[in-house]
């Protein structure tokens, strides 16, 4: 039986973030939160392999209580168990403190119910760091393959997995042993349509909530702000650029406008016809 674990994050939908023009602060109110898109594909891949091999998918997430809705979304996609790791001691965690909590949680799950493969999205769209997944892999001592686009083979008997990963230069096909950890690109799997039973199950599903004390007693000095080597020193809004010249086709006519723009490009020496 296959046991997959997926680490997910609920994130603000960054495409909808607005800045208060007066204060320059983020307007968090009314910004919808979503399941991090890469994580959704990671869940889809885990569920796909569960259907092929038989077994189960466990979801974990560290976050505020509202994260329940993203965990439900994973249940709707076919995951079986959800664990929310939530307590105020965890807040303010950077990637190092986050990977600590997630890896200790996974260790506890793994002792009860051995895990074959851990999935993460390649990065979260709010922080874009791509550090938490690999950090968890290193802490657990599991072989880690980032930027996975395809799981080619998954052999529970031979305890091996063959993964295709995408790099800037080419795609690499890598074999490693189980248990392993992969971080996923969107190509890893299509988001499935929920089956009716999964949909109904997810509606009232309540994930288990793990705190800083139970069932794992975390060392407090490694959590949240205390456990984070990095601190935010200041936050500013991006500088405003001086607005350049804007030409109107409607006023100057098409040919003249284009000619003027090309002349400016060539005057600036950024392109020449040669």
């Amino acid at each position, binding site marked *: 039986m296959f046991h997959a674990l997926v680490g997910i994050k609920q994130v*603000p939908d960054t*495409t909808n*973030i607005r800045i208060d023009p007066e204060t320059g602060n983020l307007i968090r109110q009314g910004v919808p939160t979503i399941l991090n898109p890469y994580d959704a594909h990671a869940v889809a891949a885990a569920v796909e392999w569960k259907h092929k091999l038989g077994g189960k998918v466990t979801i974990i997430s560290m976050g505020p209580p509202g994260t329940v809705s993203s965990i439900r979304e994973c249940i709707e996609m076919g995951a079986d168990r959800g664990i929310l790791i939530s307590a105020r001691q965890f807040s303010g965690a950077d*990637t*190092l403190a986050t*990977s600590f909590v997630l890896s200790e949680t996974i260790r506890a799950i793994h002792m009860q119910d051995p895990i074959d493969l851990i999935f993460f999205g390649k990065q979260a769209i*709010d*922080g*874009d*760091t*791509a*550090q938490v997944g*690999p*950090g968890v*892999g*290193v*802490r657990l001592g599991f*072989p*880690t*393959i*980032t*930027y996975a686009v395809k799981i080619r083979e998954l052999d529970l008997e031979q305890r091996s997995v*063959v993964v295709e990963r*995408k790099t800037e230069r*080419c*795609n*690499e*096909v*890598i*074999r*490693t*042993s189980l248990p392993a950890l992969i971080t996923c690109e969107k190509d890893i799997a299509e988001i499935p349509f929920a089956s009716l039973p999964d949909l109904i199950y997810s509606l009232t599903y309540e994930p288990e909530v793990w705190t800083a004390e139970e069932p794992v007693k975390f060392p407090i000095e490694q959590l949240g702000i205390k456990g984070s*080597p*990095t*601190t*935010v*020193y*200041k*936050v*500013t*809004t*991006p500088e405003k*650029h001086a607005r*350049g*010249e*804007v*030409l*109107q*086709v409607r006023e100057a006519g*098409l040919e003249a*406008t*284009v*000619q003027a723009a*090309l002349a*400016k*490009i060539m005057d*600036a020496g*950024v*392109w020449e*016809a040669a």
Partner: protein
Amino acid sequence: MTMRRFWVFIEQEEGKVHPVAWELLGVARRLASEVKDELEKTRDIAVVEGVLLGHNVAGLAEEALHYGADRVYVLDHPVFQHYLNKPYYTGLVSLVQKYQPEVFLIGATTLGRDLAGAVATRLGTGLTADCTQLAMGEVKGSDHKLLMATRPAFGGNVIATILCRSRLPQMATVRPRVFNSAPYQPEAAGEVVCETIPVDAELVNAQILEFIQNGDSRVKIEYADVIVSGGRGLGGPAGFDLIKELADALGGVVGSSRPCVDAGWISYDHQVGQTGKTVRPKLYIAAGISGAIQHKVGMQNSDFILAINRDPHAPIFDIATVGIVGDLYEVIPAMIAQIHAQKEALHVEER
């Protein structure tokens, strides 16, 4: 007297150094110079050093000296022939523990990101990803300057400056093209130091079975001089044919904003922006791109930005050097025709 070491990971694959390494050597040199005032008081020495892993890479280490490294540490062994996470992070961690650098910069490439996260976790230190500004600055409560690592967050809506106050090294990744390359110096001073680490079966926990070359699908837009990018205003995937035609006329490459990639009109390799690539071409043409902050952070350092958009209020016009308010399906064909006419005229002149 202590050595304040500013380290740069010299990323190489197939015997070629990724240009981001030379960009980072330039940054490291500047950071080292920013602590000069402190050195005068403490009599410490600041040095810029490269770290290079690979097999048969002595020549590359020499090259790094030409780009301004005072010293390059090399781990040369068959196990480092192709990048694999565990051998590489094990090697780097061992060198960091030996030499205790103050700052460690790594390129935010797929390889560099994979590596940096593992190294920082192993060392239990702080890592700031995708920095767009780096400086050594005075901070209350610290008796020496700290690395101020600045990066966009929340899709580029805010700019955050991050510190790593009490652990070393202070690590940061930087995307290609955010900074200019260090100058190549014909005369290189400095030395290459060969290092070794114990290599056993435990070190290699994965095996590369195959490399799949993807032909033209890996578009290198980061280092192009001219980029023509299309956005949602194209209205559909076919719009990229026109974008390509203009890019070809200008000798450039095709870029894209995120919505087009999300919609499947063009592959991710073309995506410019916070979740795509950072570019700084001489000429960037944004056609049908509204200019969401997440796109701007990826291209605002271009030398010249031409925006073409029907909406006169599109935010792209705020950062454009020159903007054209008009229908891109009229403007671009006219532009292509005029470019061809110019080339033709030159051709005639030459004859």
